[in-house]
């Protein structure tokens, strides 16, 4: 099934590799944003089926971005999967309290990224 995903990450390498692999392996439609602010704007302009969101970004970090998305009627329904290099359980528990739908650890395996997102969102 064709899905639309918005990838929000300040690291251009991550954006490129995630976009290419999700398009090539899963056939999803992928949009990207390089900051939380840009991601929110894109999500309002064209709400995707899900957002893959980096945690640590300059200016507006992932948790703040989630808060803004959940505060808006246009975007609060969009599932969010966090992409994080933080591995501590207490960090993960803190993220879950934000109302997110899943956490994927960095570095991720691009070959299974689509499966990881699908599993987190119950898309299998």
């Amino acid at each position: 099934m064709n899905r639309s995903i918005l990838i929000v990450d300040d690291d251009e390498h991550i954006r490129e590799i995630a976009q290419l692999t999700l398009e090539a392996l899963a056939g999803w439609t992928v949009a990207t944003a390089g900051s939380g602010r840009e991601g929110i704007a894109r999500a309002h302009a064209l709400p995707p089926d899900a957002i893959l969101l980096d945690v640590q970004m300059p200016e507006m970090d992932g948790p703040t971005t989630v808060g803004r998305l959940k505060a808006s009627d246009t975007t609060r329904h969009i599932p969010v999967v966090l992409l994080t290099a933080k591995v501590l359980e207490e960090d993960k528990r803190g993220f879950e309290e934000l109302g997110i739908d899943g956490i994927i650890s960095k570095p991720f395996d691009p070959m299974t990224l689509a499966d990881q997102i699908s599993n987190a969102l119950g898309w299998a």
Partner: protein
Amino acid sequence: MTARILLAGFSADIAEWLEQRFAGISVPHARTGTEAMDALNEASLLVLDHRLKDPSALKVLRTIRRRHPSVATPVLFCLEKKYRKRLEGTLVDELGVNRLIFHPLDKDELAQEVAALAGIAGEDGTEARRERTARVIAAVWERNKLTIFEEVGVIEKAVASLSEGGVEDGLRRKAQAEAHKLAGSVGTFGFAGGSRIAREIEQIFKDSLRLDESRSLRLTELVVQLRDELGQPPARRPS
């Protein structure tokens, strides 16, 4: 048999993209009409760009049909939309073009038509897609590794300052940020060890109050290891 798709016109990166899109095909690229005519032999499919020059795409087609009337190589033609009314009949009825697509080029549409005309649609299964994706990841690494080594360079600069007596806080924070980025990204390209090293570097820089001599030495070791690791070919299946 390997499908050979002759791409005449367009840009060379389209040929590269098609090769990555389908497993086991070759896509020679002809920059001019003359090169296209010279390379036509054994092509499974000719993909012609209306913008081709020396000679033009139309001239190439007329020449092929005149000189090689028995050649049945299918032709996919990418036409400027504004010429559709004027040229569609000539291209399809007179010059035997099998399919027309239009500028601006939609790469997915191009791939779809190429697959159908060259009979390679069946090869685009899961394994082929995985193969293709692995090649794409390797190509992205090749394209990005210079900037990734620049990120390593920032860390090296901070480590050098540290071993010379102290690192300025702005540079330390920048090095920590670069190490964080590398920890998250290089494993994705197949350098799992690189991610682990970068994460340890990040942790050491984070604890700025404890940047003593022993940690400075450890950082020196780690940054050498990181450069060595990233100088190796990436693991084929990224981890």
